[in-house]
């Protein structure tokens, strides 16, 4: 059965005409697909999806609080923008904070293969989120966006660890200051 709880925008009056085999309502394929993705999310407790505007399913935030690895204790917020071509184009994911991570640049751009060249339309929001989780468990020095961080990770794991801790407290690494991302209860 077609999802009868299509979102409010779907029930807006629509003009008839045009291709008779096209749905005339504004429920775009991308919205339909994202709805399914969100319905089927199976996330660990460390992740939370929040829609700032519940009427716009295509834009949402992911809050991720790692419970292992170097980034444990931090809280990272990613913005997801799902393009209308979805799932034929990947969602645009950005980290909203300035963080110290070899695969995330200072503007928040994320380097994750499935968000770029390896994207395929059978992937889901769930898969992307797991990709992000993985980046925080295993930062990848081979495919860097933050080259300095990648260098440190490659050459001196200990220093890298310290830098991560420093940056998460909102401190400086080199001349760059980072956002404080630590959760309160720690």
């Amino acid at each position, binding site marked *: 059965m*077609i999802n*009868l709880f299509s979102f409010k925008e779907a029930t807006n009056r*629509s003009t008839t005409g045009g291709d008779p085999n096209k749905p005339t309502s504004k*429920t775009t394929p991308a919205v339909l697909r994202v709805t399914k993705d969100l319905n089927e999310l*199976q996330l660990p407790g460390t992740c939370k999806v929040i829609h700032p505007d519940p009427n716009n399913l295509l834009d949402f935030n992911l809050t991720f609080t790692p419970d292992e690895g170097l980034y444990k204790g931090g809280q990272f917020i990613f913005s997801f923008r799902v393009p209308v071509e979805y799932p034929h184009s990947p969602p645009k994911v950005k980290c909203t904070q300035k963080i110290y991570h070899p695969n995330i640049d200072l503007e928040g751009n994320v380097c994750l293969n499935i968000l770029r060249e390896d994207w395929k339309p059978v992937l889901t929001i769930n898969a992307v989120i797991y990709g992000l989780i993985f980046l925080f468990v295993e930062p990848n020095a081979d495919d860097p966006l933050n080259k300095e961080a990648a260098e440190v990770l490659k050459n001196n794991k200990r220093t890298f660890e310290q830098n991560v801790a420093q940056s998460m407290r909102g401190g400086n690494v080199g001349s760059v200051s980072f956002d404080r991302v630590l959760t309160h209860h720690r």
Partner: protein
Amino acid sequence: MNQLSSIIDDLIENGEIDLILPVIKGGIKNQIEEVYFPQLCSVIENVPQSPSANDIQHVINAFLQFELLLNETNQIYIPEQYVDKEQCLNLKRYIEILPSKINRLHTIKNSFYQKFICLFEYYLACYTAIQSKTIISELIGNTLCSFCKKQIGLCTCETFYRNFEAVLNILKRLKLLTKVCQMSAIEACRHRISNFVRDTCSKYSPNECIPVLEQWYESGVHCWLEILQGYCYDELSQSSQELFDDHKRLELKNYILECYIKARSKHMFMIIIEYPESCKVLKDLKQCIKQIGHRYLIIDTVKDEFNKRLLHPGAGTTDILAAFINAIRVLRYLDSTGVMMELSCNNVKQYLARREDTIRVIVSNMNEHGVLELDELTESDGRATQMDMYDWEPEPIEALNAPDRALRTPHSRDMMSMLVSIYGHPELFVEEYVHMLADRLLSGVKVDITHEGRYVDLLKNRFGDAGLQGCDVMLKDYIDSETINGSIRKNLSEKFSLELPINALIISSQYWPEVKFSPIELPDELMAIQKAYTTAYGSIRSRRTLHWSHNYGQVKIEIEIGGKTLDFTVTPFHAAIIYKFQDKDVWTISDLSSSLKCSTACIRKRINLWQNCGLLKEESKDTYRLVEDSSKVAQNSQHTQNEMVITKCGDDENDTAENQADLDKKEHEQTIICNFIFGMLRTMTSLTLERICSLLSIYAFHGKNEKTLIEVRNILDQKVTANQLQYKNGLYTLPSSNQE
């Protein structure tokens, strides 16, 4: 007496009248006090509770008799030739005022005064008949005097009324008049008003009555009170109080309206049905309600009348809907806030929502004349609300009892919304429609797809596409099925050895309301034909196959029994059950269930049909025997009506009997959902039903066990009833105490 007269004569002649006068006075006083007046009193006191005209005449006669006796006494004691003498004039004056000196007057009880109510009413009726001959004949519609029932020209009421004036005079002489008036005049007026309104308005009439009634009051009752006031003037002038003050008069005038509402409320059903011809009556009623309230009288009768006359299986849905719509219009006119309508029509709404064909009738009338025009559906809103703005009134007190707000929300002014509100919410209405369409297509009756398509389009115009997209596919499935049936029949029946005429409704399950598959093993012949058809289908539609549901569809069967041949049209499921009785006369439910490889619940629900037809008899609990005597067997094929019923009972039901485990699971599920809802409301304060649903479908259901809008609403309603949630203006909120 003559002797006494002559003695008095002598005494007066001899100038000894002064001697005798005290004796005479005492005698007279005694006579009046001990004889005449008690006689009068006993007549009055013995007037029955509701006196007849004769009883009243009796009282009047007693009064006249009393007056006569007084006058006679006068004549007895004062022979004519002495009337002019001074002493005699004194005596005369004495007798004149004597009645008011009667000792017994002080001991009269209140009940005595109240006896005058009916007497007064009687004469008030006479008086008003005289005063308002034309008005009354206009109201009643004939030219007889309403009191004496004679032709108006021959009416003798005026003569008759003089007796009453005599009574008033006597009462005045007795100095009882003011008290009598105080005690009974107003009550007499009320009786008269109530009787008059009842008599004149007992039959339904589309005419305006209030102005006439008011005229009747002014020229009759009001004047009559003035007259009484005039009679009492002397007595009153001493105490300077008014007999009937403005407050009492206003009460009387309002009482007319109250009586009118009472009388007319009995006609509410008629008024509703006849609307708009009944608009004059409504104008009256609106005025009444505005002045004195009493809305409950109308609310109660509308409720009762609807229950009695409409809300039963004998009434057609179209009629009920038409009445409902008119009721909405009428009650909205009477009370623009909608509270009266809501209170009166709640039953109707609930009843209509339960009726199966309600949606169908609504939708099929959407563009027909009279009931619901398309224009009205979409365009009337603007004008209506504008008028309502000038007409705004605060909600009447009865609003406190109003259970449902949906009908009152400002945007639900047009008729279509009213009807949709039967189902509580547009989306539920649409969903209901989709189910109805599916049932109809599945029922096997011939469906005019062009018609149905037009209805779907109309609904889309109004409610948007979203909920109705499935309908397009359903209708297309129906058409495609016919094409496929045709081509299979024509080209493939030999190739695939389709020996039995077979047609299939091939449906796209994703777009139909849930299609039930209750497993059952059909008779080989039917299995074979289904299989053959499936193969034939596969040759037309490559890479596709069919799954048959035995809960739907019709098998036409011919049963030969006891030398008789009977035709039936039943679902495959029913056919499979009766088929088993060919092999064996007696089956238990559990044997049937294992032989047919289906659940006992399924069989129990369907075996009734054969029992009702008279083919099977329940020998003992759960054991059925084939009936040998076929004479009482009723076949169903000739009656399309029955077919419908049978197919209905086939697909209506839920075959899985709910056991405890299922119920527990349900409850558990519900608790989870409720916790979600409470959580959402804590963060977002207030939400609409749709928002709650869509949020639940994202965050709670995860694509599994999704709940429909109806199910979620039911859960919410439960919580509202349990005061765990509040519902206002379409929004659900937590009760304030619950909000952290």
